């Protein structure tokens, strides 16, 4: 199924170049450790068809367009031909909704932007997480969560708010709610960094909507202000379908975990550096996941702690069963390195037991390794509503001795329980190039399909806007029973000056789409024909009797 890879242009030796005697053996190379592999096996469904690349953002013609990766995308549960994706233009700083009505083969932007007029901008300086997010609720409602700010506000100035927009007509019109309004806060204003997490639980009478984001005051608090080093990882909850939100909950206020460094005990908190937390919910259970470290305002000294990027710390999980009022925070993993970011794809499958299966996928390197370089896509499963989790297994099937990096996972679950996991890696490519790879499971994550590369051509990140400030986003996946639509940010049209960056997608099809033809009239006609036939038979019997 994999198309041939294009050769990456490289250098050439030139006549007269200096020749080394043969190179030095040098210090021994110690390969980075790896997680145990998942079991790979043939699944109950197979990809029957993989489309070519589809240019999702082609309606935007500005050469300087610079779209974020469509990390958050979902199919309409009531009409799986409809797929939506949240994206943002890093140049204009505006959020957009992409809509497909034909299972991902063509896309348009929604008629109206989801942003309110007085908070027109939405992009931030996070990396490795979604910027805006979408999620379907009940009654055909689509929710869109984003950061929100205006002029003289924003990630560099501090003072950013969070907005939830709702539409029932694919973005023809929107209704917005302020989730967290920085303008209404006393000075120094907070920077609310959103939205790594958005999830909707439709199990109740009204949708419960959970928005995950982080807060800090580093840009607005004075040097000695008590808020200068403070950071929060929060969830805001709406129990009325997004019309209003209650008081935000700082997950770290519920953590009783500690870590010991050089004999000293420190609190172990969710960390915020690139946007946290990641959320999932189903049937009254909501969970938040992220990587950890000591509080920013209570860190161990540099001599004994190399910071959250230089140390292996555990992933954390917070769980609530009362719509976010109280949370239990525990360690999800042993210490790991998350040098590629801790973005976690999360979902729930109806398969795997009476309570179904929660499933997570994140990128990590084992904590007892020699360097943070290569990483695996680690999957965990829970069949008891998130209380306990299986040991981590890697669903990337490359050989660890090749030392490839697998990062930026995303996950979605089709209504029939098929779990789709995608990520980016540098398997078999060189330079600043990556591909999107895909695996799936039809047995609730117990076995996985052999990996397949799905990008129609490798992604060369040297050209696009994301390389400017290291602002990247994971790819996105929307899962239906018949297909998985997989999308990513792609700078294939970038010129030296434009740094053009678009969204592209492919569709991996498992089974035929249902016919769109209206067969009702045909069924009616067939039935009517049968009645007419019966009438003719009865009339014939009556005539036969009279002539006797």
């Amino acid at each position: 199924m994999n198309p041939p890879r294009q050769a990456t242009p490289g250098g050439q030796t030139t006549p007269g170049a200096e020749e080394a005697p043969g190179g030095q053996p040098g210090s021994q190379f110690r390969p980075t450790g790896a997680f145990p592999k998942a079991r790979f096996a043939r699944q109950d469904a197979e990809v029957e068809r993989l489309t070519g690349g589809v240019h999702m953002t082609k309606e935007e013609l500005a050469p300087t367009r610079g779209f974020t990766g469509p990390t958050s995308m979902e199919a309409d549960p009531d009409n799986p031909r409809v797929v939506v994706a949240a994206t943002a233009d890093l140049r204009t700083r505006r959020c957009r909704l992409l809509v497909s009505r034909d299972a991902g083969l063509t896309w348009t932007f929604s008629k109206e932007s989801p942003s309110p007029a007085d908070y027109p901008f939405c992009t931030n300086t996070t990396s490795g997480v979604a910027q805006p997010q979408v999620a379907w609720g009940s009654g055909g409602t689509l929710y869109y969560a984003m950061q929100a700010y205006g002029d003289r506000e924003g990630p560099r100035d501090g003072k950013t708010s969070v907005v939830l927009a709702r539409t029932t007509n694919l973005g023809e019109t929107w209704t917005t709610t302020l989730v967290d309004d920085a303008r209404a806060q006393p000075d120094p204003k907070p920077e609310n960094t959103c939205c790594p997490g958005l999830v909707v639980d439709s199990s109740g009478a009204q949708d419960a909507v959970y928005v995950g984001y982080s807060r800090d005051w580093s840009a607005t608090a004075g040097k000695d202000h008590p808020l200068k080093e403070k950071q929060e990882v929060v969830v805001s909850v709406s129990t009325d379908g997004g019309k209003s939100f209650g008081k935000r909950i700082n997950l770290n206020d519920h953590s009783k975990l500690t870590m010991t460094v050089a004999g000293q005990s420190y609190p172990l908190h969710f960390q915020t550096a690139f946007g946290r937390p990641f959320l999932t919910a189903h049937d009254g259970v909501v969970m938040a996941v992220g990587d950890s470290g000591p509080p920013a305002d209570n860190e161990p000294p540099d001599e004994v702690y190399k910071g959250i990027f230089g140390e292996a710390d555990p992933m954390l999980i917070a769980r609530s069963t009362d719509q976010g009022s109280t949370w239990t925070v525990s360690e999800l993993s042993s210490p790991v390195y998350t040098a590629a970011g801790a973005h976690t794809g999360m979902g729930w499958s109806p398969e795997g037991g009476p309570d179904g299966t929660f499933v997570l996928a994140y990128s990590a390197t084992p904590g007892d390794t020699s360097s943070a370089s290569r990483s695996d896509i680690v999957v965990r499963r829970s069949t008891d509503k998130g209380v306990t989790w299986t040991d981590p297994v890697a669903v990337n099937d490359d050989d660890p001795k090749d030392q490839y990096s697998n990062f930026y996972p995303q996950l979605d679950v089709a209504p029939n329980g098929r779990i789709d996991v995608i990520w980016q890696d540098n398997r078999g490519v060189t330079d600043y190039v990556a591909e999107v790879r895909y695996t799936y499971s039809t047995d609730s994550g117990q076995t996985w399909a052999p990996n397949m590369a799905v990008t129609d051509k490798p992604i060369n990140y040297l050209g696009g806007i994301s390389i400017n400030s290291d602002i990247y986003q994971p790819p996105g996946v929307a899962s239906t029973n018949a297909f998985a639509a997989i999308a990513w940010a792609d700078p294939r049209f970038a010129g030296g000056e434009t740094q053009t960056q678009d969204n592209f997608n492919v569709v991996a099809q498992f089974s035929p789409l249902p016919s769109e033809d209206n067969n009702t009239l045909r069924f009616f006609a067939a039935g009517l024909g049968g009645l007419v036939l019966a009438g003719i038979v009865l009339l014939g019997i009556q005539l036969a009797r009279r002539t006797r």
Partner: protein
Amino acid sequence: MEVFGSDFAKGKPVHIRLDAPDGRILYTHPDPQPSTMTSQFTVQVPVPADISPGPHVLLATQEHYDMNIGIPARATMYVNSSPPVAPLPTDRAAVLEVSGGPNAASYVLIGLGGAAAALLVAAAARAIAARPPSAGGAEGVKT
């Protein structure tokens, strides 16, 4: 040959190796600067005298933890040869398969089923209508 590197962690040497993560070291850059997010270096890497012609991969390794994912970094070089012509990409589907819906035979069966049902109803109605009146019914008046 000239080799450019960027975004390596500062503080630890970068080894540029030949053809494998544990291949022989051709060059060592001692300490990328100024920082992990902004480090860059351009160096002249000697090419071994015994290298075979054709494509080779340079791998840059670094033993360090500080946001330096993606190590080993890789770059391709061609010794006394040129990059191959890129193969034409395999054609992929441009459309998705759609179910054709019920076929003509299905509609005929639906019609016949409807006819059979209607005839059964008619036969049942005729059978009910033809039953003799019950014994306890009123008798005609005798004159």
